[in-house]
């Protein structure tokens, strides 16, 4: 049923909460696991500066040390856990608008299932921070499994 499972991750605990679920399903189906990190260019333009967005577009990702380490750590976590379980994990790094990239990636790679974490934010925090997961739900045709994460509960 599930041959290729996608886990989008930004390296946060919220994202990693979904990894166990993805792993379990992947093991049962002997599926291929895809770990995707998206550098959010809208966020980068105000936090690192518009010049850095140009830098990503020029493919200079390898010299942007901190961002690269963050991306590698995020997908590396999935790769490590997957390797322990004896699964094949494909790591991928992209830059742009997260939900759009996730949806495109799912399309291009025949992903059968997207597994991702969610904060379960409400009220003002939700309005301000929004939810990548929510937007992904609306932009992809692949089935999405949302794993809710709440701190200290």
């Amino acid at each position, binding site marked *: 049923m599930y041959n290729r499972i996608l886990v989008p991750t930004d390296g946060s605990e919220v994202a990693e909460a979904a990894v166990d679920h993805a792993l379990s399903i992947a093991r049962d189906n002997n599926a291929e696991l895809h770990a995707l990190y998206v550098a959010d*260019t809208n966020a980068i333009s105000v936090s690192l*500066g*518009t010049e850095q967005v140009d830098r990503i577009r020029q493919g200079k990702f390898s010299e942007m040390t901190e961002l690269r380490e963050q991306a590698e750590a995020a997908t590396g976590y999935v790769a490590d856990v997957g390797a322990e379980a004896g699964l094949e994990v494909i790591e991928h790094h992209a830059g742009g608008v997260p939900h759009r990239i996730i949806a495109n990636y799912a399309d291009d790679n025949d992903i059968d299932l997207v597994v991702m974490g969610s904060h379960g934010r409400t009220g003002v925090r939700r309005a301000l921070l929004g939810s990548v997961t929510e937007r992904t739900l609306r932009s992809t045709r692949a089935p999405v499994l949302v794993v809710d994460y709440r701190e200290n509960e």
Partner: protein
Amino acid sequence: MAAAVPLQESALLPEGLNVSFKLLPAAIVSAMMLSFLVIGFIYKVADTDDMWVAGRSIGNIENGMAIGANWMSAASYLGMAALIALSGVYGLAFVVGWTTGYFVLLIFLAAQMRRFGKYTAPDFVGDRFNSDSARAIAAITTFLIGFVYAIGQARGMGLVGLYIFGDPGIPGLSGYQSMMILFMVITIGYLALSGMLGATKNMVFQYLILIIAFLVGLYATGWAAGYSTILPQLEYAQLISALSAEFSEPFVNESYYLWIATAVSLAFGTCGLPHVLVRFYTVDNERTARWSTVWGLFFIALLYLSAPAYAAFGTDLYSQNIRPAFGDPGMTSAAADVIVVLATQLSGLPSWLVGFVAAGGIAAAVATTAGLFIAGSSAISHDIYANIINEDASQRKQMIVGRLSIVALGVLTMAAAFDPQAPIAALVSYAFSLAATVLFPMFFLGLWWERTNRQGALTGMITGLILWLIPMANEGAFGIVNGGAGLGIDVIATWMPAIGSAIVSMPLVFVVTIVVSLMTDNPPQETRQMVRQCHSPRPMAQDRTAEEVVARRTDDSPADD
């Protein structure tokens, strides 16, 4: 001497300027603002599907134009000619200072910064001196520079906006205030979309608009009024003897010392401005860093060499049509700040051309304000929030903090520009004094003297901040001390004027940093090697930073060096 530049009248209403709603110019300005957005969407930042695949790189010339757009603000477009018109030869200190700065940048900083390879200016300070406090001080300074610099831009937008759109008659606000707020709000709104906008492409476009508008305005004015034909930049010399001595005789309006102080402060301030330096982090290699600087300087010089001619034409036209520009009452600073637009109008050119010249001024102000606000927001969201307060901050949280900082900067700027106490060029030069005093010594010593350590940097920066505040308080800048009268201590006003205070404070900061560094411990071996790597004659691989080279070398051969 508080009147380094003749002062304002409280209601900013440039005399002789026909303040009313002008349909054609208004349409041109609106169309231009709209075209920024359109260009932004055409070249919008596409998703990068695979970050490990090389994309198209940005060439020297394109980079140079982006440097020009980011750099040339209302202070260059309007303020420079304004100061020359008001104070004659004194105004040339701006032309000299702002271009000299690029040579220092070219020789000592551009390529070396490229090698250090970080994201923001505070990043460099924090990593070089291994200190979060140093990073925080640099970030706060960056934010302050953005704020002070933007006040001048807001004044420029307000005055030009008033000329084109007239007084909308909002109760409680003067026409200038309404227009200033309107254009600042538009700029902030524009920034909210900037993540989607193609950064460099848009800057190239902004540069083209502003340089074409300025040069067309100058040529047309010179031609229509019969001053010049093909090379107004030289032909204006024929006017020199006709203009009064206040314009053409050196050091009549201001002293020789003030001239030098201003030029020094502006030159080194240029090298300490965070929004100028960030461009060098992102270029392909050191060679591109150097050539972009050269092209940038060329594109800037196109405007700078023309500004004195514009000022001369404007002053002469003003004297003929309105009243003598010098003497009592003379030209007001508000009129001078729009002399570029005023000259075009007084020489009888059609109103669409006047509108086009005005639009160029607004393009300059918007482009620079955007660059400054982004530098300020990244200082807060990347350097203070993500690096110090919350190290696990998600990308989205950083974005919210960044956007809030932009709004905060905008509100602060609008409040300060409500009743600005000085002309555009003077307001902007306060930011240059700050950059030259606090940041430039850190960049320069940090890159060239490996012995500079954390204690030295911290003491140096704090000394610098205090030294910057002294003349500001003394002259009552922003109306904070004594309701704008300031402390008025003559010795300080003469030898350490706010407009060029770096001539005294920058050397002091160098001395303090060096002495404290020598009295305290050596910085760690890795940091010292990193500094050597930044200016080593050996070429470095394109995709490396000095930090990585050092890390690799220490792994391979700990005995190296």
